[in-house]
């Protein structure tokens, strides 16, 4: 039987009276690209934050790589091979692009007291980090302060860091938003490359066209609940999804002219 890499069961997160996520189940199989879709406030990012350990779930269970992980702190999950990006980018602004990636490379050192005293700017480390930067297309900017980069490059920097940390699973939180057309297609290629490296990808996307093209399967959330799950075609023809998501879009577009 195929073992899922990530599995969430009955996941719930309540903020006071607000049920941001209210009983969501899904699983991500090894090697697939799964997209989480949904309108604003559907609970996508809250789900991400529970999976990556930033929030403790109110209820439900999370299994990552066969271990139960709900309630573990983010740095533990990172050590288990889960990398993530943030929708609102969080670069280490006064460090250079290269140093940003080197911070991620330290994942092999931070957990052991004796390993944190070695130098981080060694030849091997820099070469490895440059390799990643080349993959995401930031190599020429390696020496630039991260705080000076435009948004598109910061999104790629986030992905570069997530690629180093996420040996098994990478969570991408709206990595396409705010990107120009050319940047979008390059990022699509990058995500396919990541999958070819054997890394599983879970992504949150607002942009329907992108996720339909990229994802093997899609989970649609609305108001903290799972509305539908399936392939792009299945989702596109799902009546509920059309109602809740596409319909609303269309109506809005129509109203907006």
């Amino acid at each position, binding site marked *: 039987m195929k073992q899922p890499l990530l599995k969430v069961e009955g996941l719930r997160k309540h903020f006071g009276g607000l049920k941001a996520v209210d009983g969501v189940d899904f699983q991500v199989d090894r090697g697939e690209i799964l997209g989480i879709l949904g309108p604003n406030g559907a609970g996508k990012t809250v789900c991400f934050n529970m999976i990556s350990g930033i929030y403790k779930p109110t209820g439900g269970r999370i299994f990552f790589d066969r271990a139960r992980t709900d309630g573990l702190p983010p740095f533990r999950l*990172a050590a288990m091979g889960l990398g993530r990006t943030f929708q609102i980018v969080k670069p280490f602004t006064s460090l250079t692009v290269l140093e940003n990636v080197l911070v991620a490379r330290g994942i092999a*050192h931070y957990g052991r007291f004796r390993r944190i*005293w070695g130098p981080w700017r060694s030849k091997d480390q820099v070469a490895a980090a440059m390799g990643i930067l080349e993959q995401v297309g930031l190599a020429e900017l390696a020496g630039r302060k991260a705080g000076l980069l435009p948004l598109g490059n910061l999104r790629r920097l986030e992905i570069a860091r997530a690629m180093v940390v996420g040996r098994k699973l990478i969570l991408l939180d709206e990595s396409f938003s705010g990107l120009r057309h050319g940047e979008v297609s390059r990022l699509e290629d990058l995500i396919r490359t990541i999958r070819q490296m054997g890394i599983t990808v879970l992504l949150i996307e607002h942009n329907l066209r992108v996720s339909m093209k990229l994802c093997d399967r899609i989970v649609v959330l609305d108001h903290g609940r799972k509305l539908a799950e399936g392939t792009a075609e299945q989702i596109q023809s799902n009546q509920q999804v059309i109602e809740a998501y596409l319909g609303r879009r269309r109506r809005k577009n129509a109203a907006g002219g």
Partner: protein
Amino acid sequence: MSGYLITIATIVVINAIVVCGLNVIVGYAGQISLGHAAFFGIGAYSAAILATKAGLSFWASLPMVVIISGLVGLLLGLPSLRVKEDFLAITTIGINFIVEAVFLYIPFFGGALGIGGIPRIYLFGLKLKGFSFFLLCLAFLVLVMLACWWFARCWAGLACFALREDEQAAASMGISPVRFKLLAFVVGTAMAGLAGALYAHYMRFISASDFSFPVSITLLSMLVLGGMGKLWAPLLGAAILGALPEIFRPLVEYRILFYTAVLLLMIRFQPSGLLGDDSLARKVLARVVPGGRS
């Protein structure tokens, strides 16, 4: 060198060591501490008590003093680092007031009279005073600065930088915020403890007011003036703020006003300090010294 100059230079070097510790906590790890004088005091009081009550020599007590300071730093850091930014600032102010009160009101620490009769330091049978004591302090400063230099180059330091910039992003890269903040706190307080031991054996008499809250502010001013997170900032800041009052001795009446005005102007117009990346001083220097890094 005249005795007067040596005295000032010795105090500057001791202060620079304390500020190096503060730099690790505030400059490297980004954890504001407004109570650093408390740890300076804990070092000085441990050294004084080990010397006068237990009769230990400076060299025998030094490792203990550094360990005690680091441990107290760990103990007080644990609850402090659970809170963030503003809370941390206030908590560290609180620690300073409480530690000073403990020194002042508990008879074991000499109470209002402080502790006197602290012996001088001997090295190879040689009594260190004046210039030789200054050299000893300088040697320790070199050691501490080497430690800081290394800290900025090892993974632990990089983890601290990441935490300073963005805690959530750092945590998503495997960095335990609590563990590395505590590490920086312990390293910083241990350095303050070392400086405290030197101070106690130099002054040979210490009292609680030597480590009061305004001292913490002075230490922080030195760091801000030099430039947070820069290796040479502690020495530069300690030297400038240590020398200024002496240069302006005729204006002794306006000394503190001048001091605070410098601090205010600095923080208002150049919060990254003299050695900061975008500082005016650095730009001027880059123009004067061709080929210097801008």
